[in-house]
């Protein structure tokens, strides 16, 4: 083998300089190198709870998309959903890290992203119940993704003006990615809605199935009121989301479902830590390995 031809081997076999590798630094912070301080005017404990809500939405939604990988109708959908799952996971990491920073600013322990993701129990998660829903088929997958990304995009474009600089930066960055997610989901809902009679039926059934979970997205939560100028009132998002859904449903020749929002349980829903029966199984899968080796470093 001529040496030049296998120059590429040199890079593989190059002496790996030890200091370059992670070496069990264990705690890794996606916000590493960012000024973690919380402006004095902001209620740090409320900010921690707010970032946890938005971070859990992305973390749990990403998990459901991860479960779809290698099971999609075509390769273009495999790369698309893997990319969307990865974007949402990236957003979750930054938001959970910000929650930990705010928790520390409020005098709490300041847990890291992995501590929050793998060592909280079900009732401590604050994601909306829409995020934890298991899609029965590709129609539910795209229909739910349309509702979720339209809602989260509307939220992040407004949150880009938040008084908390880190939250504002995370939201501005997320909005660019969410625009691609919404566009992808909208195109598929139109293709399925206005495709074959079979796909039209499945798409309408899918919308009917997830519609009750959309109600919670615009209802008040226990934290936003304590964060004027920082958080976004969910009720403000209904207009934009309804317009986007209206456009897509019209193009898809689909009817807007009339189902009532999913009932609360003892007055609580996702934002209060009240979830759905499948959520326990989801967490069991997500947390199993990390909890089996609590003192390990990965």
């Amino acid at each position, binding site marked *: 083998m001529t040496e030049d031809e296998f120059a590429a081997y040199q890079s593989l076999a190059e002496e790996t300089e030890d200091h370059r590798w992670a070496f069990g630094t264990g705690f890794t912070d996606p916000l590493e190198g960012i000024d973690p301080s919380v402006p004095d005017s902001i209620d740090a404990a409320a900010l921690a709870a707010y970032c946890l809500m938005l971070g859990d939405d992305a973390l749990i939604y990403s998990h459901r998309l991860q479960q779809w990988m290698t099971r999609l109708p*075509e390769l*273009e959908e495999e790369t698309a959903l893997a990319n969307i799952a990865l974007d949402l996971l990236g957003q979750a990491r930054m938001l959970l890290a910000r929650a930990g920073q705010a928790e520390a600013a409020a005098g709490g322990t300041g847990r890291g992203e992995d501590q929050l993701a793998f060592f909280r129990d079900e009732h401590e998660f604050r994601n909306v119940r829409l995020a934890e829903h298991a899609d029965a088929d590709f129609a539910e997958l795209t229909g739910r993704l349309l509702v979720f990304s339209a809602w989260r995009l509307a939220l992040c474009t407004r949150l880009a003006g938040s008084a908390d600089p880190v939250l504002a930066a995370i939201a501005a960055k997320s909005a660019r990615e969410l625009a691609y997610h919404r566009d992808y989901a909208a*195109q598929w809902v*139109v*293709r399925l809605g206005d495709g074959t009679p079979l796909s039209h039926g499945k798409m309408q059934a899918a919308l009917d199935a997830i519609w009750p979970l959309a109600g919670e997205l615009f209802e008040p939560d226990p934290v936003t009121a304590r964060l004027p100028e920082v958080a976004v009132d969910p009720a403000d998002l209904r207009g*934009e989301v309804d*317009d*986007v859904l209206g*456009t897509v449903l019209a*193009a898809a020749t689909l009817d807007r479902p009339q189902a009532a929002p999913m009932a609360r349980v003892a007055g609580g829903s996702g934002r209060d830590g009240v979830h759905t029966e499948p959520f326990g199984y989801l967490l069991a899968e997500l947390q199993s390995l990390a909890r089996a080796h609590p003192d390990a470093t990965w």
Partner: protein
Amino acid sequence: MSDFSAEGGHGAVPVSDVPVRPESAHVRADWPLYEVFLRGKRGLNHVHVGSLHAADPQMALRHARDLYTRRNEGVSIWVVAAADITASSPDEKDPFFAPSGDKVYRHPTFYEIPDDVPHM
């Protein structure tokens, strides 16, 4: 054991008696009918060789390639919607070059939105 080699990169795969020629070409009755014209390698003009159903011109070209050029008979293919004329691009010269249009679903949807729709 048939011959094996790591020719593809990830590891040993069979390199003998592996079929490669496309076979699956399905015809759907409710799709419009297309007439297929073929010009042989030494032929001078296109000859009508048959017809097929397809959702759109691209699919008709791909099916025509699968159905009518498997024995390498043709160099250039024309498909004509039963109602009008659709010509494949002039500089095609290799039967296997015919655009593989394959699944148009891979392409983004084309749908015009009226301009006065809010938030558009």
